[in-house]
């Protein structure tokens, strides 16, 4: 046998046929809503990716070219598209609507639906601010899920700035702050309680608030529950979420959206609204996205932006699982 690297795989015709059908259905949704498909190189200069996000652009796969420049395999498409917009669309009419289906690379533990080389299908909406730009993204996302046959899928809506601002408000900085954000992202509530309690100047009530906040998820009513926990950071985040939710209602796409104050994305470029996609037939997240209003500025153009990406292979797994649920339990 001739091996291939761990986390990569060959795709044979039966699967390829289904993936292609899925891909075409998604791209058709994107194109019908005015999103033009783009393609960018799989390899970029490491320094360019790092400009987008110092931490996660820490690509798992880096190497030198013949001139000694450091190259990296991209770990998502948002940063390459930010670069593309800044260099190819300077001064273009806004908003810009772009979409892609592309492979990206991450050093994950390989398992079904999670390989180190994986395909993402997504859109980027550049130059459309919150909340309406966010609502448009959610609308496209829902249409995409419908086109894939995942009509039970749910979209989680959270706020990327909530905990950064809350921890500022509590005066938690530096390493302690990073560590607590990591605990929150991992939903390690036991560790979170231990670490928060150990900090000077943090009382039991603040610990309880932080934990309770991270567990608030559901309909619009959770915004009131959050507000009752108090604090300026919570007030601002719930105001932003409330505006976004109203914009979703105005477009009639709020039904499948779950407000989630415990949501954190591990990518550093998000700000404001963040999204995650779940299907009851699959234990893993199908994809995600959100606003990245400050990312384009790092490439020299100051434009608000938002987008989402779905993991093509996971959507495919969920499709198959939904079919078996449909044939059995329902």
């Amino acid at each position, binding site marked *: 046998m001739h091996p291939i690297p761990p986390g990569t795989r060959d795709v044979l015709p039966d699967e390829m046929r289904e993936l292609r059908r899925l891909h075409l259905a998604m791209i058709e949704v994107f194109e019908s809503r005015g999103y033009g498909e783009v393609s960018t190189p799989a390899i970029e200069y490491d320094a360019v990716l790092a400009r987008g996000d110092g931490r996660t652009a820490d690509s798992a796969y880096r190497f030198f070219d013949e001139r000694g420049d450091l190259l990296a395999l991209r770990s998502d498409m948002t940063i390459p598209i930010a670069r593309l917009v800044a260099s190819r669309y300077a001064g273009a009419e806004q908003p810009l609507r772009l979409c892609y289906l592309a492979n990206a690379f991450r050093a994950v*533990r390989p*398992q079904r639906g999670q390989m180190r080389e994986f395909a993402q299908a997504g859109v980027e909406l550049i130059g459309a601010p919150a909340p309406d730009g966010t609502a448009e993204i959610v609308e496209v996302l829902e249409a995409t899920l419908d086109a894939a046959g995942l009509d*039970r899928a*749910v979209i*989680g809506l959270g706020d990327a700035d909530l905990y950064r601002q809350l921890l500022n408000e509590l005066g938690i900085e530096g390493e302690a702050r990073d560590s607590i954000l990591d605990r929150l992202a*991992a*939903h*390690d*509530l*036991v*560790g979170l309680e231990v670490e928060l309690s150990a900090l000077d100047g943090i009382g039991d009530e603040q610990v309880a608030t932080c934990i309770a906040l991270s*567990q608030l*998820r*559901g309909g619009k009513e959770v915004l009131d529950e959050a507000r009752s926990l108090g604090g300026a950071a919570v007030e601002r985040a719930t105001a932003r979420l409330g505006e976004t939710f109203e914009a979703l209602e105005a477009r009639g796409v709020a039904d499948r959206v*779950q407000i*989630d104050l415990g949501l954190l994305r591990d990518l550093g470029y998000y700000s404001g609204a963040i999204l*995650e996609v*779940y*299907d*009851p*037939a*699959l*234990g*893993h*997240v199908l994809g995600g996205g959100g606003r990245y209003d400050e990312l384009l500025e790092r490439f020299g153009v100051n434009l608000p932006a938002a987008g989402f990406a779905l993991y093509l292979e996971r959507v495919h797994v969920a499709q198959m*699982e*939904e079919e*078996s*649920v449909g044939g*059995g*339990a*329902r």
Partner: protein
Amino acid sequence: MSVAGMGQARGEGPLRLAVPRGALLGETLDALDAIGIDTSEVRGESRSLIFETEGLTLVTMRPSDVPTYVEAGAADVGITGKDVLLEQHDRVVYELLDLRFGRCRMVLAGRKGDQRLGESQRRLGMMRIATKYPRTAERHFEQTGRQVEVIDVKGSVELAPLIGLADGIVDLVATGRTLEENDLEVREEILECTARFVANRVAHKLRAREVDGLTGKLREGLAR
């Protein structure tokens, strides 16, 4: 009970709770009894692995398999030891509650009156440590700035220093009797472990009410 329709696909029916067999089983079942879940069938002689109770499906498995099942969503929630979670820290599960039972310590132990740990460290630059928790052990020694050769063993780890496979062991200790019987003693405490209640990431979002309800009842059970 029907096993049909028990594939990976979920989203309907009662929540599935992964229950650890072995040392944690008794106290896990006690905790479930305390919140009104009938565990008599699990306690019986049955060889079944899956038990239906009122509003909850109990799935019994090795504690070290709990994160695997919960991460994949084959079980929605589960109970296992912190030692298991630390050893498999790259498995994505939400750790919702410290259940406070099954308390034990992860320790570094060596033979009584034996200087091999120190000698190896000083003269050879690294200790040889046998353990069933290679990643936890490696992390501990890395954080404390010492070089070790970690030897991964599956069976009775106490054997390793007795017949010269390793200078010491990293293992879980509840009462300390096994160490005592094998002429070993605790040299360092690494951490304390208890049972934890964990949830699958998607189940935590999509079945929020049920997961929160169970978490709340377990928390109240602890307070009693």
